[in-house]
Structure formats: C-alpha cells, structure tokens
C-alpha cells in the first residue's frame, strides 16, 4: 500500500473554498498534497458547478490557483472512517480507498440549521442554501412562487439566485429585527467593505421583492406537497400561496470527522490555534467547522492551514490580520442574526423532529437528554445520524447531540470490509 496514490504528505478533506486554499498553499510549498471531496465537484457548496461553466470571479481564481500546482484531486471520494492512525478510509465509485497522511487538513464545511415547524416535512419545503445547491445542479425554478423565510445574510444571495433562475420570489422573511440588522449594516464598512458592494448588487437584482425583518414562517400547508405558508410578524399573521418555501436559520459546523479524530470542540465548533491546528497534533481544521464565517473566512483559514501544514509558519502568520477581521465579522453576524425565542419553539406536539424515524416532539418531551431520548425514541438513529434533528433539539432543549461513531457517513458494507482496497480513482 505504498502506492503513489495512497500516501501523501498533506491530505485535505473537502474541496470548498477552505479546502482549495489549503491544498493550493500546501502544494505551492512543495508538499505532496491530495485534496478530496465527496461530491463530483470542486468548490464546495458555494462554487459547485462553476468549474464546468468556466467559473468567474474568485471561484475561477482559486480553481486556477489549485490547478497550477501538483496537488492531486480525488472526486466522489467520501471519508468515512479512520481505520488506523495516519490512515483514512474513503468510499469512491471505484471502491474503497485507504489514504495515508502525515498532516491532515479538515475543510468539511457546514450544514444548514433547520428549526422544525408544523408542515416542514412537506415536499416543497427546502433549505435556503440547499435550494441554491440544487439550482446549481439543474433544479427548475422557472415560474415557481417562492417564499424565503429564515435568517442570515444568505437570504439576499439566495433570493437573487432564485430570481436569476426564473423564480417569482414572493417575499423574504428575516426573523431578526430591523434594529439588530441596522446595527450589523452599520458595522459592515469596517468589518467587510466588499460585502457592501455585494449587498448593493443583491438589492438591485431583488428590486420589487419585499424584504421583511422581524418576520418568520409559523407553519406550512399542503396535502402531499407544499401549497402555502403562514407567516407572522409583530403586527399580523397571514398566509401566502407558494410552490416552494426556502427555509434555514444559518449554518452548523460539520464536526463528525473532527470528533472521530478526538479533536476538541467547544460551543459547537472545532477548537484551533492561530495556525488552525486542532487539539490533535498534525490535524488542522479550517473554514466553517471552526465557526461560521462565509467564503472570506474559509479562504484565509484555508491558506493559513495549508501553509502551517507545510511548516511555513511565518508565511501563515502574515495572514493573521485578515483572519482576525474575518472572525470579527463572524461575531457581528452571530449577534445580528441571533435566533428569537419564537422561532426555536414553533414545533407543535405533533410536529416531527426526527425526519428519518418520524419522531414527534411529543415523544421527545418525556426525556431529559439526547442520549435517553435517542435510545428510547430512535430520534437521530436514522441515516442522517442526527445531522438534521440534532441541531433542532439543541435549539429546542439545549441538548448536546454530538456523535463520533464510524462510519461518518452511511457507506457500503463492502467499503468497511475490504482489507485490500483499490488505489485507483485519483485524477488530476
């Protein structure tokens, strides 16, 4: 297994902005580098699909920067376990792969936070980011009536993108209040000057779409699919007819893999030092898993991780100021979009919390913690392994739904079983 395709000095898991930056930095520094991603795409949630279309702006720049290096790229390669120290087990279309690493960089991104409300399981209720990703994969929105209800700066970008795809965006409902939003807006010029131009662009493309702060969805209606959504603001409650409800309340770091390696986490994020190194020596973490901060933070953290992994601490150190600014922006965002009590608590007793096992809130209420609830209701035992309901119960009850058992993703038994995995599947 000393195959050239199965041992690398630096292995980067996840090829979003953070992973592309990390792999580029490590490879530019002369390290034999592999970057792999579970999807067929490079660019993560934000840039997926851009590669084929030639890319634009920063997507194009970063993809080109990586391509100029000797870094090896493996697509459709999902890391599922760590069978031995220094070895990853991954599933790929060619079969299982064991990949040896000396330094590991985890840039595995985040997922959306969903807060259950009556009707949220109907087909037609989709994640805000989730729908953006689906649109990048060809999901049709032409002529569809869409309500966006949730929280965070993504609502603007999403609205603009859905509209560009032909959707009729009826309304954007932001749960946070105008006051908080205004304070956030005022702090933008200092924290992230580029975001101002971005925001202006979105605003222009969303001309005529009402943007309502202090407003949220309380329930979705429909028989076999979504037909309408009931919204509430401080002044009124009303119903909008729609084909799609895009919902989401910001992002949750993906921590299954860091936890599998025993990396320390605190307050729902991986703990890293100034060089992006985790509590486990030789394992670096960058981008969303260390705290939600968007593309800008992901890129700078990725670079720092890549340079640090290659031992170029001085080079990494020069990015410190940028990193601090990105983190300040994250904190401002957290304050501005803090969840209001009402939206945490929209689920009725009958509302399903666990969508894999159909566990209703009523059934969870009897238990005092996640483990007891899980053991006795099967909440979180389905294929998503608590990735969706875990965030919900944390917001509902303050339960810690952490998990660290392999496989990190559901995987073919053959992948776990094969002791002599193939080593094909890596391509440039």
């Amino acid at each position, binding site marked *: 297994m000393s195959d050239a395709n199965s041992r690398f000095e630096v292995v980067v898991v996840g090829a979003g902005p953070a992973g592309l930056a990390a792999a580029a930095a490590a490879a530019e520094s002369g390290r034999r580098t592999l970057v792999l991603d579970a999807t067929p795409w490079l660019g993560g949630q934000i840039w997926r699909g851009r590669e084929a279309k030639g890319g634009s702006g920063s997507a194009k720049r970063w993809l080109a920067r990586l391509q100029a290096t000797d870094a090896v790229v493996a697509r459709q390669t999902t890391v599922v376990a760590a069978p031995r120290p220094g070895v990853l087990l991954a599933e790929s279309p060619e079969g299982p792969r064991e990949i040896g690493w000396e330094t590991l960089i985890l840039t595995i991104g985040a997922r959306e936070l969903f807060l259950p409300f009556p009707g949220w399981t109907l*087909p037609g209720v989709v994640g805000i980011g989730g729908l953006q990703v*689906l649109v990048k994969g*060809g999901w049709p929105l032409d002529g569809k009536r869409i309500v966006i209800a949730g929280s965070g700066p993504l609502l603007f970008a999403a609205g603009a993108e859905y509209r560009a795809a032909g959707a009729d965006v009826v309304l954007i409902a932001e749960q946070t209040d105008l006051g908080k939003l205004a304070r956030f807006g005022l702090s933008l010029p200092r924290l992230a000057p580029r975001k101002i131009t971005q925001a202006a662009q979105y605003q222009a493309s969303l001309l005529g779409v009402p943007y309502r702060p202090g407003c949220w969805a309380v329930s979705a209606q429909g028989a076999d699919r979504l037909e309408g959504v009931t919204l509430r603001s401080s002044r009124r409650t009303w119903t909008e007819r729609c084909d799609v409800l895009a919902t989401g309340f910001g992002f949750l770091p993906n921590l299954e893999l860091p936890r599998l390696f025993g990396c320390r986490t605190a307050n729902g994020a991986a703990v890293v030092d100034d060089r992006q190194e985790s509590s486990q020596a030789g394992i670096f973490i960058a981008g969303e898993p260390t705290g939600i901060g968007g593309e800008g933070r992901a890129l700078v953290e990725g670079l720092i991780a890549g340079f640090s992994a290659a031992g170029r601490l001085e080079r990494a150190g020069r990015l410190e100021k940028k990193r601090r600014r990105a983190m300040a922006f994250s904190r401002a965002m957290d304050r501005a979009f803090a969840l209001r009590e009402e939206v945490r608590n929209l689920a009725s007793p009958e509302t399903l919390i666990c969508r894999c096992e159909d566990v209703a809130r009523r059934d969870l209420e009897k238990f005092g913690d996640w483990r007891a609830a899980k053991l006795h209701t099967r909440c979180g035992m389905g294929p998503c392994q608590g990735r969706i309901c875990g965030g919900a119960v944390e917001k509902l009850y303050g339960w810690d739904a952490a998990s660290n058992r392999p496989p990190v993703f559901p995987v073919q038994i053959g992948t776990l079983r094969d002791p002599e995995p193939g080593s094909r599947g890596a391509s440039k």
Partner: protein
Amino acid sequence: MAEIVSLTINGRPVRVPSGTVVAAALALAGESRFRRSVAGHPRGPLCGMGVCFECSVTIDGRPHCRSCQTLCAEGMEVRTDE
C-alpha cells in the same frame, strides 16, 4: 452547448442536460415525492448537500441513493419507490 443525457424515471424516458443531478431530473419530470418516510409520509429534498437523506431514491436497482449528490448518467434507471 450542453450535451443531453437520457435516463428513465419510474419507467418514463427523460432527457436532461449533462451536469444535472438526479434530484433535479426528478423535479424536471414533475415528481415531488421522492420517498415515503417510515410512517408513510411523502418527502422531497431538504438539504441539497447530501446530509438529510430525504432525497433518497433507487438508482439502477440500488436503494437509498442520495439523488442530490448523484449526476445523471446515460441509461440510468431511477425509481421513487422507497
């Protein structure tokens, strides 16, 4: 221009541009129920990124495939019978 990929969805032929994910092909074909939950409720994609498993369908006879993470391929057979 984009190439065209032909596949079948619940036995019906469907043509989509290459680069389309299976979930999008299902939507293009007018399907809204991708699977039934353990209690029999209709479900469709939620996360779009491969973590919720609500978009699971049977692809070429293999059940439990995430349609949002799978690209359409020539001759692929997709069923929404979970």
